[in-house]
């Protein structure tokens, strides 16, 4: 007997993500999903942000990693609450993992929850974790053709943080070219060139966080 089904393979992820969105909206919590290749600087950006905006927002982090809790410990050293999810080889976080790790947080008393996804430019993009926005991170050490090669992330992200600009004198990375490609995919994409090492360029990123936080609170 043949049975016609037509069900999306990602439907269970999407239904849990929708539940999470409802929960986060109810709590007025801004949730950002940070996506980049390994080592682009997600944890470094969080360390800076959690430290510099400590007096302004109540922030917490969900850390996704293949193994180890190194990143959660780095983030916790800033004083922010951090919960580690080890995917044991899994290439992305999904909405169920996020839901199952929310218990330690007092969501009603948080302003921003950051999700640091597993370092990978491909799979995390397809698994909605209930976030308000995806934040794409790209480091100038990786090559300016990344937006061309991984269009979906730059298409779906709200902003692109271009990290390690302190290395620009030493690498062959054309900021204009990367920005142009990314904007072809997503005309409204905000682009923030920063250095998490020197602290250069972080203010526009912080201004964006403030604006998004205010918008979420009012919604």
């Amino acid at each position, binding site marked *: *007997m*043949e*049975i*016609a*089904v*037509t*069900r*999306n*393979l*990602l*439907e*269970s*992820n999407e239904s849990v993500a929708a539940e999470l969105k409802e929960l986060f909206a109810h709590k007025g919590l801004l949730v950002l999903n940070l996506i980049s290749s390994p080592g682009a600087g997600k944890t470094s950006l969080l360390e800076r942000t959690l430290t510099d905006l400590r007096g302004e927002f109540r922030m917490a982090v969900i850390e996704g990693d293949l193994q180890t809790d190194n990143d959660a410990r780095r983030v916790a050293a800033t004083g922010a609450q951090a919960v580690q999810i080890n*995917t044991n*080889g*899994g*290439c*992305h976080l*999904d909405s169920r993992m996020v839901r199952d790790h929310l218990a330690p947080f007092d969501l009603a008393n948080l302003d921003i929850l950051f999700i640091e996804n597993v370092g990978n430019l*491909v*799979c995390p*993009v*397809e698994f909605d974790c209930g976030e308000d926005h995806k934040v794409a991170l790209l480091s100038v050490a990786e090559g300016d053709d990344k937006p*061309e090669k991984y*269009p*979906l992330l730059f*298409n779906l992200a709200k902003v692109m943080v271009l990290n390690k600009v302190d290395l620009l004198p030493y690498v062959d990375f054309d900021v204009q070219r990367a920005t142009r*490609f990314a904007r*072809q*995919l997503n*005309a409204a994409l905000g682009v923030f060139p920063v250095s998490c090492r020197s602290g250069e360029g972080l203010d526009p990123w912080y201004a964006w966080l403030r604006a998004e936080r205010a918008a979420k609170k009012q919604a």
Partner: protein
Amino acid sequence: MLFSMHEMSLASNLLEMLRQEMEKHGATRLIEVRVCYGLLANVVPESLEFAVMALTEGTPLAGAKVTMQPIPPLLRCIGCGCEFEPGEARLAVFSPCPQCGEDFGHSVLRGKELYLDSIEVM
């Protein structure tokens, strides 16, 4: 054989669905599973087939044939609005439009799907 955690997690969603559908229709044996995937969806068909095999081994679902049906992409040109099927699937979003030559920023009308289409059961 190709082994990928990504397809493993997709396959475990698929198995959950197969169990639900079989129960709903009172089926006891799974003969064939047909999955449709867009060529722009991030999935390697052989890896998904393999993951289904690996995960069903020793279960009542074991031995089912997995058929992966590709869906070619269809784009709408951002320049002139015409619809076209790009040649090379991987970088399809950047394919030049056959009418006006525009090669960026097209919208994807088809080609990102990934769904369980139908099953053959007893």
